[in-house]
C-alpha cells in the first residue's frame, strides 16, 4: 500500500477470512496494490486490475475490495456473450410482460375516459382523479375498515359507480342542461381535477400507501418472466372487463344508444333514446371502470393522491393512439403505449421511457392521423 505519490505505507497480508486493515496517519488518496502471486492458485482478480485507489477522509475508514474469480475459465468471453444475449431476450420477455401489465391497466382507465368522451364529447381532465378515487376508496375499506382487499375492492367499485352516477346527475348533467359548451366543460374538468386531487390530499395525505394484502408479493418464475400472482389475476380481470365492455358497446342496445348519443344527442333524443339516462349509465359504468383501473394500478404499484394524475397522460395517449371514442381502440392504443414504455428501456435510459412511447404516438399519428382503429371522415 502506498500514498498517492507512491511513498510506501505498509505491506500486509490478509487474515484467513481475507480481510485486512491498515491504520494511516493522514487523510488523502492511497493506493492499494494486491500482489497476484500471493493469491491462492486458481484464483485471479476480477477485471485483472489489482490496484485500488481509495480516498481516506479524516476520522473515517475506507474499504477496498478485490473480487476474486476462478482462474482463466476457458472460453469465458464467449460464455459471457451468450449470457448477454440470453439475458437480453429474458429481459425483453420480462419487459413485454410488464408492458402488457401496464398497458392493460392503462387500457382500463382509458376505456372509462373513452366512454365518457365518446358519449358526451367531454375531454375529462378529471379522469385521473376518478382513477385515484377508486384506489383510495378501496384503501379506505381495506385499511380503514379492515376488510380484505377483494371485498373492499368490490365495494369501492360499486361506490365509485354510485359516485359516477351522482356526478352526472348533480353536476355534469346540470351543466349540459344549461348548454355549457364543450370547451368550457373541459376547463371545468380541470377545476374538478384540482378540486378532487386536493381533497384527496387533505384526507389521505401526501404519502405513498399500499393495500393491507398482496403488497410486495413475491414473484413466481414463468419461463423467463417473473410475475407476481396478483399481476396475473389482475391482467385476467382487466382483459375480461375490457372485452365485455367493448362488446357491450358494439352489441347491446344501450351500447349502441351510447354511440348514437355520441354522434348526435338531439337526433338520439328524436329517436326515442333517453339521452340523459344513457349518459348517466355511461358515467356510472365509466366511474366504476376508472375505479377498477385505480385499484389495479394501486395493486400493481402503490397509492398516492397523484397516482391518477401521473398516469393521465398515458391514458390520453392510449385513447388517442387507438382512435378516439372507440372501446377497442382504447385497448389497442393503451397496449401499444404500455409495451413501448417498457420495451423501449432496452435501448433508452429508463428515465426517458415515456419519451419512447410518446414518440411512437406521434409517429403513428403521422402515418394514421385518425388513430389505429379510427376512421377517416368523409368530406363534402
Amino acid at each position, binding site marked *: 500500500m502506498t500514498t498517492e505519490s507512491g511513498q510506501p505505507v505498509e505491506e500486509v497480508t490478509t487474515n484467513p477470512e481475507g480481510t485486512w486493515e491498515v491504520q494511516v496517519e493522514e487523510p488523502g488518496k492511497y493506493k492499494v496494490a494486491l500482489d497476484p502471486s500471493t493469491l491462492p492458485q486458481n484464483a485471479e482478480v476480477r477485471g485483472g486490475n489489482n490496484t485500488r485507489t481509495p480516498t481516506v477522509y479524516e476520522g473515517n475508514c475506507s474499504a477496498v475490495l478485490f473480487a476474486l474469480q476462478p482462474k482463466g475459465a476457458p472460453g469465458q468471453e464467449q460464455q459471457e456473450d451468450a449470457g448477454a444475449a440470453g439475458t437480453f431476450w429474458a429481459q425483453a420477455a420480462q419487459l413485454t410482460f410488464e408492458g402488457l401489465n401496464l398497458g392493460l391497466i392503462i387500457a382500463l382507465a382509458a376505456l372509462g375516459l373513452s366512454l365518457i368522451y365518446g358519449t358526451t364529447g367531454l375531454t375529462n381532465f378529471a379522469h385521473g382523479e376518478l382513477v385515484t378515487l377508486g384506489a383510495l376508496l378501496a384503501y379506505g375499506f381495506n385499511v380503514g375498515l379492515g376488510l380484505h382487499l377483494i371485498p373492499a375492492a368490490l365495494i369501492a367499485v360499486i361506490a365509485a359507480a354510485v359516485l359516477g352516477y351522482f356526478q352526472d346527475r348533480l353536476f355534469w348533467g346540470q351543466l349540459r342542461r344549461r348548454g355549457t359548451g364543450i370547451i368550457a366543460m373541459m376547463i371545468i374538468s380541470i377545476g374538478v381535477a384540482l378540486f378532487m386531487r386536493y381533497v384527496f390530499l387533505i384526507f389521505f395525505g401526501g404519502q405513498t400507501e399500499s393495500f393491507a394484502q398482496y403488497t410486495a408479493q413475491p414473484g413466481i418464475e414463468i419461463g423467463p418472466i417473473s410475475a407476481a400472482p396478483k399481476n396475473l389475476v389482475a391482467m385476467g380481470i382487466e382483459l375480461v372487463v375490457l372485452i365485455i365492455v367493448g362488446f357491450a358497446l358494439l352489441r347491446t342496445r344501450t351500447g349502441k344508444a351510447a354511440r348514437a348519443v355520441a354522434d348526435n344527442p338531439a337526433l338520439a333524443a*328524436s329517436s*326515442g*333514446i333517453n339521452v340523459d339516462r344513457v349518459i348517466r349509465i355511461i358515467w356510472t359504468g365509466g366511474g366504476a371502470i376508472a375505479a377498477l383501473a385505480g385499484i389495479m394500478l394501486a395493486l400493481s404499484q402503490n397509492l398516492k393522491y397523484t397516482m391518477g394524475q401521473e398516469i393521465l397522460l398515458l391514458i390520453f395517449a392510449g385513447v388517442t393512439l387507438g382512435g378516439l371514442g372507440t372501446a377497442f381502440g382504447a385497448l389497442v392504443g393503451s397496449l401499444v403505449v404500455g409495451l413501448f414504455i417498457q420495451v423501449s428501456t432496452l435501448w433508452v435510459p429508463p428515465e426517458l421511457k415515456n419519451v419512447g412511447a410518446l414518440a411512437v404516438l406521434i409517429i403513428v399519428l403521422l402515418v394514421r392521423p385518425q388513430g389505429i382503429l379510427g*376512421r377517416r371522415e*368523409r368530406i363534402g
Partner: protein
Amino acid sequence: MSADEAPQGQAEEQIEEQAPAGSERAVTDRSDHLAGAEDAVLRCDELIAGYLPGVNILNGADLYVQQGELIGIIGPNGAGKSTLLKAMFGLVNIRSGTVLLKGEDITNMKAHSLVSRGVGYVPQTNNVFPSLTIEENLEMGAFQVPGKFKERFEFVAELFPALKERRKQRAGSLSGGERQMVAMARALMTEPSVLLLDEPSAGLSPKLQDLVFIQAQQINKAGVTVIMVEQNARRCLQICHRGYVLDQGRNAYTGTGRQLADDPKVIELYLGTLAKA
C-alpha cells in the same frame, strides 16, 4: 305594398324587396288559424321560441292538425319552419305558448318522451348517426320497440333497396341523398301516430322524391298524422290537405293545399313560377 303595384319587368327585384312584413299580410284574426282546431291531435298556440337569449325566431306561430290529416308548411328560408318543428318536438325551448298533443300539454317536454307518445321526427340537417352503420341507425329508430326491428327493417329495405345492400356501411360515409334515405327510413322504423318531416325530399333524386311524397301520402292514408315542411312546395301543396305559409316566425297564410298553390301572392312570394314554365 303589394306585388301588383310594382312596375312590370321588375318582378325579380320585387321579390327581393318584398320581405314579407308578417302581420301586414298575415291573417290578423288568429281564430282563422285555429278554426276547426277542436279535437286536434296536435295543436300549437302562439308559440314564441328562439335559440339565443333575447332573439325570438317564432313570434306567435299557430298550428293545428286533425287526426289523419297531412299538413304542409312552406315558407322562405329562415322563416322558422324547422324551428317550429323543433319547438313542437321539445328540441328548442318554447318561451311562451303551448303545445297540446291529444289534449295533453307537451310544451317543452323532452323529445324521447314524445317518441314514446307516438310522435316521430325527421330533422332537416344532421339527421343520421355518422359513426353507426345504416343498420344500427335504423335500429336506433326502433329504439323504443326493439322487438319490431326485424319486421320494420324489411319494410324500409323494400322502400330503399340501396339501404339494404349497404346495411353495414357507416352512415357517415354515405352520400347526401343516401343519408336522407336513412333519415326517412329511421323515422319509419316506429309506427308513429304523428310524424314531423323536415324537408324529407331535399337532396333526393326525382324518382326518390316521388317516392317520398307517395310514401308520405300512404302513411297518412294509413291513419298517421303528418306534418311536412318542404321547399319542394308545389309537390307538398299538391298532396297535403291543408297548408301553412310561415314567414318570419308567424303564419302568413293558411288554407287547403290547392288554395295556397293557386293563390297568386303565394306563388309570387313563395312558390315561384319556374315549375310551371
